[in-house]
């Protein structure tokens, strides 16, 4: 039997400790003298564990994860592509990693130059006039873009009137949440029966109270909107601005530029298209690119070149203000610029071409065993429906769990909301034909299993470190930290981490 896996707090104890610190080389005085009047804590209940055991603990935990360096990760809308190792090494150079944001521009010209160069590259790739790197993630970028649009309308004296934002029903959940955060009203526009924008409905919803439209391109079904230029033109004629959710930019690089399609503003998820590691949920980075009309409203400081030297410009009277404490997620910005520079124009164009090719290949093949609700050429991802499996008592969730037994990650499931039992599959350009075929083979086998052995799918996964977890119990008991755990139940005995 495998040794039971314990939390750090359940290991070691008094007398165990990790790395040593230097003995004080300055005169030591009692804390009560140095911190007069301060109320100090009586105890600190943190783990007491030796370094070897801490290392083992986390290395063992690491083996329980699926990750893109291990295998296929077709998580739709998340662009889980290969993360080149050179990006991480460059970001870890001491000149970048130890740069202090308040040291003054003269102390880190090279770091600011990276920001300037990245801004130029992103503006060129997206077709916009200017870029801010401050937003820390896509949703933060959405809010930043909407605040700039709000400032634009206010500057024109229309801020009080224009308070509605049109969002298609296929949009990511962050879009309506960001609109709400900006203090505006969401107007949801139903998609047409082919899952694309209903141009007539969109035009009908536009009026002199519309502040902006928000669009994901390609949309969340992986389909390009052929009438997008008509939509952005109509919005602009109505006095609204056009925001593009750049989550799916991996489909467009080198093919079309959002700035050329009539958009005024977009965020760019560097951790998706520009291949910075997702880190188990982050850090990401969500720079925002804007048209010339929105440039005066960029957050401060604006990093730009003056006389050949990069400077932080605070003299921006129309700026919306700061959205980040400093310059954004600089460590991620470095990685993204390394990626862009490594690929160059030719490599970047190949990214989207291969991503589109891989997605179409998988889509055509899987359309034989799953329902393809919108059978058109897709862009970088596509959405299948598992509703045909319902007659066997099998849900999309069961398909996702069974896939884990084949050494691949599951697609995004139950999104977009407008497709029943959705499976959203994004293979990315860095996968080989062999990997795509393996995944397709697994999906096909699962479709057969759904008919022949539906109970097997409901039990899946069978080979993962743990089997299906009781999410209902998690939400009922709400054991959210180890002190709560100690209150509710003892350390389970005889549990194992698998074979």
């Amino acid at each position, binding site marked *: 039997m495998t040794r039971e896996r314990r*939390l750090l707090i359940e290991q070691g104890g008094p007398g165990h400790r990790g*790395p040593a610190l230097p003995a*004080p080389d*300055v005169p030591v005085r009692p804390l009560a003298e*140095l*911190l007069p009047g*301060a109320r100090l*804590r009586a105890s600190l209940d943190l783990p007491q564990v030796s370094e070897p055991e*801490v290392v083992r603990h986390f290395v063992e*935990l690491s083996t329980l*994860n*699926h*990750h893109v360096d291990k295998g296929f990760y077709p998580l739709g809308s*998340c662009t*889980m592509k290969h993360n080149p190792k050179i990006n991480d090494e460059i970001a870890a150079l001491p000149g*970048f990693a*130890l740069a202090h944001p*308040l*040291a*003054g521009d003269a102390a880190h010209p*090279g770091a600011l130059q990276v920001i300037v160069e990245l801004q130029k590259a992103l503006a*060129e790739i997206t077709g916009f006039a200017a870029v801010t790197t401050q937003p820390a993630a896509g*949703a*933060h970028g959405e809010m930043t873009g909407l605040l700039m649009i709000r400032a634009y309308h206010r500057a024109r004296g229309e801020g009080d009137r224009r308070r509605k934002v049109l969002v298609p029903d296929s949009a990511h959940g962050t879009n309506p949440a*960001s609109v709400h955060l900006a203090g505006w009203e969401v107007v949801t526009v139903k998609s047409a029966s082919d899952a694309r924008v209903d141009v007539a409905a969109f035009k009908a919803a536009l009026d002199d109270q519309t502040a902006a439209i928000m669009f994901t391109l390609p949309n969340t079904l992986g389909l390009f909107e*052929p009438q997008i230029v008509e939509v952005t033109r109509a919005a602009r004629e109505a006095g609204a601005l056009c925001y593009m959710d750049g989550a799916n930019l991996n489909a467009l690089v080198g093919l079309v530029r959002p700035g050329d399609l009539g958009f005024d503003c977009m965020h760019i998820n560097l951790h998706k298209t520009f291949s910075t590691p*997702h*880190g*188990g949920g*982050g*850090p990401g*980075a969500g720079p925002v690119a804007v048209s010339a009309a929105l440039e005066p409203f960029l*957050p401060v400081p604006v990093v730009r070149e003056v006389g050949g030297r990069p400077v932080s410009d605070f003299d921006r009277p129309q700026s919306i203000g700061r959205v980040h*404490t*400093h310059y954004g*997620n600089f*460590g991620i910005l*470095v990685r993204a610029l390394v990626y*862009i*520079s*490594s690929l*160059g124009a030719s*490599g970047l*164009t190949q990214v989207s071409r*291969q991503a589109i*090719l*891989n997605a179409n*290949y998988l889509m*055509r093949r899987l359309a034989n065993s799953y329902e393809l609700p919108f059978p*058109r050429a897709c862009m970088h991802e596509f959405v299948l429906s598992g509703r045909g499996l319902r007659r066997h008592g099998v849900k999309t969730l069961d398909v996702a769990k069974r896939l884990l037994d084949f050494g691949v990650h599951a697609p995004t499931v139950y999104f977009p909301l407008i497709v029943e039992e959705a499976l959203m599959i994004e293979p990315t*350009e860095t996968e080989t034909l062999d990997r795509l075929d393996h995944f397709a083979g697994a999906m096909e086998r699962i479709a057969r299993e759904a008919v022949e052995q539906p109970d097997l799918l409901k039990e899946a996964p069978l080979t993962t*470190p743990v089997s299906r977890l009781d*999410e209902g119990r*998690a*939400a009922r008991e*709400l*054991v959210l930290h*180890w*002190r709560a755990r100690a209150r509710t139940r003892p350390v*389970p005995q005889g549990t194992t981490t698998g074979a």
Partner: protein
Amino acid sequence: MSYVGISPDEERRMLEAIGVSSFEDLLRDLPADERITHPLAVTGPLSEIEVRRRFGAWADSNDVAHAASFLGGGVYDHYIPAAVNAIGMRPEFATAYTPYQPEVAQGTLTAIFEFQSMIVELTGCAVANASLYDGCTAVCEAALLARTHTGRRAIVVAGAVHPHIVEVLRTYLEADVRVVEERNGTCPPDALAAALGPDVAGVVYQHPNFFGLLENPQAIHERAHQAGALAIASCDPIALALLEPPGRGSDGTAADIVVGEALCFGNTPSLGGPALGYFACSDALLRRMPGRIAAETVDKQGRRGYVLTLQTREQHIRREKATSNICTNQGLLALRATVYLGLMGREGLIEVANLCVQKTHHAARLASAVPGYRLVHGGAFFREFVLECPVDAAAVVTAGRADGILPGVDLGRFRPEWKRHLLVAVTEQRSAEEIERWVSVLRRAGGGK
């Protein structure tokens, strides 16, 4: 350089399988008039050797790499044990994403649960989340939570909160942000009480504050609660190794929300980002908490495991009714923080905090003895203090650069009237010898010998 996985021959076979004669057939929905016709004007392609040369030159031009740093203001030069880097670089953690499939993400989820646990212990709060973008946006999210919870709009901010945090709060909340000016570097409880009213949703203070000074948390919590507002503490988590946890205590005396910047736990400054916001609060506010939350449960065989829970608060389910628009967390930085806290443990973290206090006070004593220099504030300070210089602080900074010393943050960048004020931080990394060299810089810049 290319990272694509398909050869030209395979591409032909794939197009055949798709049933089109050329790749362009897949792009028929794209507007022909708007297609890019010229190559993108970007640098590259570069080989790894060329990348190292180009970026290496930029990195070397930043003079922080080999200097002794006395810079603070929210970002500090704390030691990162080697084991943190060894674990933090592992692709099993770095190249995974949000744990949507918990059966193959127990590594990430268990680490998040341990992170939440250690934040709960440090802050004294009932619950903590999986992290937010940084300490500043954590303050903003706390302010937004206070508004929805109380149904009130105004946020009162103690004057010694980091000026950039106040700026970002103003970007989010505009005129609803009211600042109570500091007095002798800290928040005066009487002025705070006078600023409160029935429209105030929350009171934000920083402890230790922007000047390194300790506030009086109890007095602030009591004033906030008397006015029906939430008390929101923004705390340096290394200081919390020594200080009474602001979230612990009976109703009325504890902070409702404790947030802060945990970059200091095993993460590099990186020009201020990516950083690591932590967010902890009382049980009563749990269902309004932003961000991801991991919870313990069991699998079908009764084995312990972890999942994301209370997701109905989040944007992907609630859309415009969500508690926040946040989707990502700072998973990899939270992991490094968890490894750091695991390694340092109870004794190590207390030692780090104590060394910071001892060295900071030693430096302050020496600096006060240099002619022309004096400490601006009189109160108790943790690992940072404001030094008034006989010359512009910028001149001291310039003098230090020549000697491989980064003497502190020139506060003139925040307010013109602070142009002679230098914010100095001393961590466990600074030796007595480096502190002596720093004093020499002060002496030289001040015109002494």
